[in-house]
């Protein structure tokens, strides 16, 4: 072992059903190391601090540049991407845990399927496929494009949901990421054509009305997406739709 090392205290779990436990590993300290590269180090040499050879720690990672969201974990009690958390400034022993709001598959690997299911429920896409050529879509003003771009950076990582006190096992709330995508789709003139069905999903249980306004989402979002703006704007859209339906239907 080199003189300087980094201790990682990792929350492990053999399978979805088994009991979690903590295990400590010591890896050589390099200032340019990040949590993912240290987990790779452990994978190369899966020996814990007691010197016992154990099963390598399972984790998800892909892009290693904070744009895919796969390596989202809770590091020292705060949710973030592991790849952008450098060893420099991490402090030790550093606690590395899987996200708590999603089912654990194994060790640090969680199943984020609920986020994608909720995107489907909210119809957060623009249907453009059909049986004939629909021709070019309407043009979008540059300032609208620029604003919409902020929301298009969402990588469905789950940080906003992990930090949200209303997103949990005893609530159906879909959370900020879905509301942000619903708002993004309503920025586009073609997307606006399906606004009604998206707003119906937003007015259902688990929709925008279940937000508790803790606003942690916008604080922890690694992409600085103005999520609270989306929540209030969708709140306004649903208010208007409700009043319209009340008197027009």
């Amino acid at each position, binding site marked *: 072992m080199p003189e300087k090392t980094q201790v990682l205290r990792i929350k492990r779990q053999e399978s979805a059903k088994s009991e979690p436990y903590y295990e400590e590993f010591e890896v050589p300290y390099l200032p340019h190391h990040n949590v993912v590269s240290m987990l790779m180090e452990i994978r190369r040499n899966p020996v814990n601090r007691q010197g016992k050879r154990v099963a390598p720690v399972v984790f998800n990672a892909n892009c290693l540049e904070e744009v895919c969201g796969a390596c989202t974990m809770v590091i020292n*009690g*705060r949710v973030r991407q592991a790849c952008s958390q450098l060893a420099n400034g991490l402090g030790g022993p550093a606690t590395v845990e899987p996200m708590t709001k999603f089912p654990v598959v194994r060790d640090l690997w969680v199943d984020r399927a609920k986020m994608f299911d909720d995107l489907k429920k909210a119809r957060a896409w623009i249907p453009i496929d059909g049986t004939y050529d629909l021709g070019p879509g309407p043009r979008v003003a540059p300032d609208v494009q620029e604003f919409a771009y902020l929301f298009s950076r969402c990588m469905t990582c789950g940080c906003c949901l992990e*930090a949200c*006190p*209303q997103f*949990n096992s*005893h*609530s159906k*709330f879909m959370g900020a990421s879905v509301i942000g995508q619903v708002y993004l789709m309503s920025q586009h003139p073609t997307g606006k054509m399906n606004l*009604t069905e998206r707003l119906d999903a937003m*007015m*259902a*249980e688990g*929709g925008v*009305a*279940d*937000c*508790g*306004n*803790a*606003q*942690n989402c*916008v*604080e*922890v979002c690694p992409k600085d997406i*103005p999520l*609270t*703006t989306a*929540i*209030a*704007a*969708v*709140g*306004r*859209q*649903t*208010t*208007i739709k*409700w009043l319209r339906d009340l008197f*027009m*239907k």
Partner: protein
Amino acid sequence: MAEAEAVAAPASAAGMTADERHWLLRRLHSLSGIIPIGGFLFFHFFENAFVLKGGAMWWKETEFTRNLPFQIAVEAFVLWIPILYHAIYGLVITATAQPNDYPYERNYQYTLQRITGILAFLFIGFHVISTRGLYYAAGIETNYLRMHNFMMNPLILTTYLVGVLACVYHLTNGIFTFTITWGIAVGPRAQTLVNRACVALFIIMAIAGVAILLAFRAPA
């Protein structure tokens, strides 16, 4: 498409789907906190502020609230039913919460909103039963002497101070979240401005509330 829906809707128009009911209950919860409950709290502070001009003045100026036409109906529909609804459905919402320790101002306000909601519910229950409740049950008027004795009792005074401050916090923070929920303050700048205005309102109402309570300690 809107036309097609309007034609298709009447089949289900008689009833409400579970989702529609959920949305309506949430929005009624948000609205009832401001109208009528919030509106009444402003009025309640204003009428009781006359105690600052003496107990006799207070009794005289609050006279009309004790002699309203349809007194019980007004109290029930303007106060008791909306407050009970707001409180009970508020507890249902609170049961879905999982507060955490992320160190952000709004997160603390979120947790505090739920704590003050429960405190306000307990306090308003005690306050209403010990004043209007006793009046309807036993004909006991809450006159100046009774309020004076309440405020001279350290335990009741503490209950009132905590209860009034909880109500004031819950209302002022609730005004802020109301503007988000209904889509009035949308962007971060607008929300920051409204939040600051609501903090200022909290300070003003907190001072007024404590001053009114302490004024009842003056001998009759």
